């Protein structure tokens, strides 16, 4: 007979690496990289750059959760043909998809409001921003590293601990290194591999 909740045997309320139903599906995967929250209404374009899955969306949603403002994500295709919303603090995700004319118009409005635009982007938008008179700051989210993954996994495991129980699940540096290799630069893929890793530990009980 299978245990009703196999994770309880490890002292856990569930798999520590589950995805949440929150927007961005990665809201629980934010990592404190020591980045300050963006200033509001600062005539600033803050570019968050990094490879796919590096945590750009997660960082934008985290900042919005802390300081408010408007968040929008630009789809591929015809849906990108709309003027980005401008507010004292606005978050534009996948901003490299915004057509150049609409981008320039919205950034010009950001100068005159004034506004801070935090943009998750794969391409450098500084040229257009500087032309309309916005200051530009760029943050490159670092690639996935073993030490950071270990720290994050430890935090997630601790967060899933059942009250008054000892946790019998820990990620070794060797296992973390293997997951980093499998995930490439993507935190999202790393979270999936960690979920599978935890489920395998449970199935071996």
């Amino acid at each position: 007979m299978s245990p009703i909740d196999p994770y309880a045997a490890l002292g856990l309320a569930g798999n520590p690496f589950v995805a949440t139903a929150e927007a961005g599906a990665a809201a629980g995967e934010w990592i404190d990289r020591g980045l300050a929250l963006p200033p509001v209404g600062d005539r600033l374009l803050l570019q968050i750059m990094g490879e796919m899955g590096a945590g750009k969306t997660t960082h934008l949603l985290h900042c919005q959760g802390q300081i408010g403002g408007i968040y929008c994500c630009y789809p591929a295709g015809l849906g990108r043909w709309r003027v980005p919303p401008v507010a004292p603090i606005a978050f534009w995700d996948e901003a490299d998809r915004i057509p150049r004319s609409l981008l320039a118009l919205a950034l010009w409005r950001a100068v005159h409001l004034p506004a801070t635009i935090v943009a998750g982007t794969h391409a450098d938008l500084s040229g257009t921003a500087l032309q309309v008179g916005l200051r530009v700051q760029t943050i490159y989210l670092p690639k996935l590293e073993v030490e950071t993954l270990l720290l994050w996994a430890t935090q997630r495991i601790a967060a899933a601990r059942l009250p008054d129980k000892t946790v019998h699940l820990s990620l070794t540096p060797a296992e973390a290194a293997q997951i980093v290799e499998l995930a490439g630069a993507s935190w999202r893929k790393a979270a999936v591999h960690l979920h599978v890793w935890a489920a395998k530990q449970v199935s071996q009980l």
Partner: protein
Amino acid sequence: MIDIQLSQTEVRVGDVLSGRLIWTPARPLPKQATVAIGWRTEGRGTVNSQKVQELQIDCDRFATGITTTIPVQFQIPTSAPVSYDGLLLRIIWEATVVLAFPGLLTRNQQQAMLFRVLPRSS
């Protein structure tokens, strides 16, 4: 704290899950009491859930300071998904009792108990 006890931890689709609520209420008495069974997914990917059956409990059956036991029964639909513990996904069944109290400052009480739904043996 209200307690929900199930007479079995595993039940096959199409069978009946039975259990009981046990509670010794303090003041104030709840304005609404419901017990429900349902399933939810947990893992990677989009989360899904469904409340399969819900019963309203007559709150007049509770009296302050008196321990009350209320039997409950649920039929597991034959079309219901079975419990699953996979590497990427879990399907988790639970029975949940929720007590809603009058007043804005009184928090609702909720208690859940997991159980497993198994496929029918041929």
